[in-house]
């Protein structure tokens, strides 16, 4: 019961958040210099053409009226028509979103799969060479831009060794796993580096904790100590961090999707900004906000499951 109440409360709290996001993004895109009408008709258009386009798009209305339309339409589930794609924003996003979600979830899984075991190896070998090697490699991963990592992966693993395709995103589930492997690795490297560092120090902290020392003294087998005490306690902060990284991961797709020619919402956002496609930018921002809110909610729920001390209130 407490959990359901908590979820409902959190969902209610999302309403003012969304309203704020709507105000901010509405004003931000309009503060940008540049005119959607010019983006549509091109630099060469006459003033009369531009006026006609502004009229058609309702851009000549006062700001408050445009905002009113935006809010009321959004509440009715209508995000407007994309200027660039000449189709309903919802349709455009729905077409592209699955690819990005696939890529993001893939990257999260890879981050955990890469970072988890290595964090254990590093923590349990603290100060010895495996620890040093792992930490150095991840430090390099942290300090390299995603597009650069992407290009290196493409050049060697795709173009030269031909283990993976250079671009595209596949039709079937298996083909997607194969096509999106390199982009997922490129996105995951940064997150996995953060997770690895955090998990490593969490493990070290827990291993040194008195209750673990006590369990060891009691003669509990190592796997039980690791599973029941160390892992569970070390995971709490890591789950939080992973949740927070999802936002990062999604912004990482902006660059990755362009480098790897993956048609997702990240690339769409860049295109929308360049074209000053107000409805599409607004729709995408709301979608991102919704996704991040849901991820945060899930993170909190998982945390409370891991640590009963964190009560859902």
């Amino acid at each position, binding site marked *: 019961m407490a959990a359901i109440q908590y979820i409902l409360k959190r969902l209610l709290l999302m309403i003012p958040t969304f309203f704020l996001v709507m105000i901010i993004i509405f004003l931000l895109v309009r503060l940008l210099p540049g005119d959607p009408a010019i983006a549509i*008709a091109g630099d060469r258009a006459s003033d009369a053409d531009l006026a006609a386009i502004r009229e058609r798009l309702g851009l000549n209305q006062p700001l408050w009226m445009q905002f009113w339309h935006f809010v009321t339409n959004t509440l009715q589930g209508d995000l407007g028509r994309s200027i660039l*794609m*000449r189709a309903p924003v919802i349709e455009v996003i729905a077409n592209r979103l699955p690819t990005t979600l696939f890529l993001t979830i893939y990257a999260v899984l890879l981050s955990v799969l890469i970072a988890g075991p290595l964090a254990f190896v590093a923590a349990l070998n603290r100060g010895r060479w495996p620890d040093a090697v792992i930490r150095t490699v991840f430090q390099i991963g942290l300090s390299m831009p995603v597009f650069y990592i992407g290009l290196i992966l*493409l050049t060697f693993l795709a173009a030269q060794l031909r283990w993976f395709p250079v*671009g595209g995103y596949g039709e079937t589930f298996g083909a997607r796993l194969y096509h999106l492997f390199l982009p997922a690795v490129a996105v995951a490297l940064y997150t996995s580096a953060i997770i690895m560092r955090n998990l490593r120090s969490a493990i070290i902290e827990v291993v040194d904790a008195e209750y673990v020392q006590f369990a060891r003294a009691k003669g509990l087998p190592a796997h039980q100590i690791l599973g029941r005490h160390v892992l569970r306690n070390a995971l709490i902060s890591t789950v939080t961090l992973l949740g927070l990284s999802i936002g990062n991961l999604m912004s990482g797709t902006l660059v990755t999707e362009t*480098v790897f020619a993956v*048609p997702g919402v990240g690339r769409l956002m860049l295109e929308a900004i*360049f074209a000053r496609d107000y409805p599409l930018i607004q729709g995408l921002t709301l979608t991102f906000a919704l996704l991040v809110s849901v991820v945060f909610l899930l993170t909190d729920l998982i945390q409370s499951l891991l640590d009963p001390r964190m009560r859902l209130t």
Partner: protein
Amino acid sequence: MTKKMTVAAALLASVAALPALGQERGGVLNFARYDGSNLIDPIYADRNPDIWMVGSLFDTLLRSDENGSIVPGLAESFDVSEDGSAVTLTLREGLKFSDGSALTGEDVVFSLDRARNPDLGPWAGLLGNIDSVSHDGRKVTIELSTPDPTILSMLATFTTGIVSKAAFEAAEGETDQDKSAALFAATAPGVGSGPFYLCGFEQGTSMEFCANQHYWRAGADGEPLPYLDGVHFEIIPDDATRVLKLQAGEVDAAEFIPFSRVAELEADPSIEMNLFPSTRIIYAPINTRETRADGSPNPLADPKVRQALNYATNKQALIGLVLQGAGKPMTSPLMAAATQLATETDPLYGYDMERAKALIDEAGLAPGTEITLTTLAGSADDGTIFAALQQMWAPLGIKLVVEQVDNATRGAKNRSGEFDIHTYGWVNDVNDPSQVTGWLGYTPTANAVGTGWENSEFNTLFEESAKEMDPAARAQQYAEMQEIYAEAAPLLFLYETPFAVAVSDAVEGYVQTPLGNNQFEEATVSR
């Protein structure tokens, strides 16, 4: 039959079969594009990625040949009346759309009326002199309100591509826009009058062209073009990825190759690096207004300063730095050398630092004058241009500072005049110099490309040339306009660049025209 005769017959048969054997047919060409199309409708196509595809799907009444001359297209013959008030054309016999339905005068009237309707597309102004279009069987008559020397070029321009009236009217939707969007939706079977029709479309991802079995033009083997079964387009915005994709053999062709990669691809034996002649020019509009947007006096209002900047700019060096040599300095102040009526002024403001310094002294420009160059953020080319100009102009006592903006902001600044100098580029849409000349120099069009330059003599010449039917007189007017423009230098005249398209050595016959249109009808791919 004797043995001798058999051999002779066999020889004859093999000779007869040669042309057919010599022409490869079939296969799908995989083409990597830098940006996707949104709406490949002849009248709504407004961005180059849309415009450059229209010609493959919708044929025009007339065509431009390789030399830029106007030749018959869907119309087998054409005639302009003596007084220039009407054009009559005769359609070829048995023309069909890709769905097998007949292409008639009715479709031509429908398409041209749609193209010249100013309430619809942005290109209606190009056909503003058309008074009416009518047909009588295969004969199409276009009545003009005033004689128009560009009319034949316009009838060879993408916006006058012929669409199927029946298919268009049958498309879902209330308005012309809705119907157009429905016709080009992913699920709709496209109808084409060009060598291909649209048979698949995932916006922002991929696009499929299928061969139009009913296309009127014949290939070298006497069969209808195109040779290919189809073209598959993939959108790969990143330059490096597009090149990698070609090198890995995942695509057969990649467009917009960065010039820094041209030499490397030229050295690759499995790749043919094409540099197609183009009408693209790179130039920098100079704000010529007496005061800047903030009210301060504008040092660039003095033509001597603008001339000095042009003399002090070593274009050959810029071409080396930015294009790795793959380009040439502008020779006409208003257009690329490939454009009709371009005058060859070679060199146009050749590098001459002494002269530049003298002009700056004459103009009395204070040492340390600050000038802002507005460039595209993220553009490596613009970054290089700025760094080079900063050094090249320093001896003139000019302190060049940079302002980096995105494309939409640059466009807005151009319109409002809030700039000193900014980078820009142009490619002709029409096979006629009037469009680029109007854009760069005619004040009413766009304030002479946003520079605010106004010259009544130039404006009058432009207006007169728009109705001058005598080709020699018109050429003279264009020569004069170019002379006036060069002297006034409202631009920093930079260079022309080719279209860089790399194809695998399995591909033959692909062409990008000087206007940028992609021509696949005579392309082949052997696997």
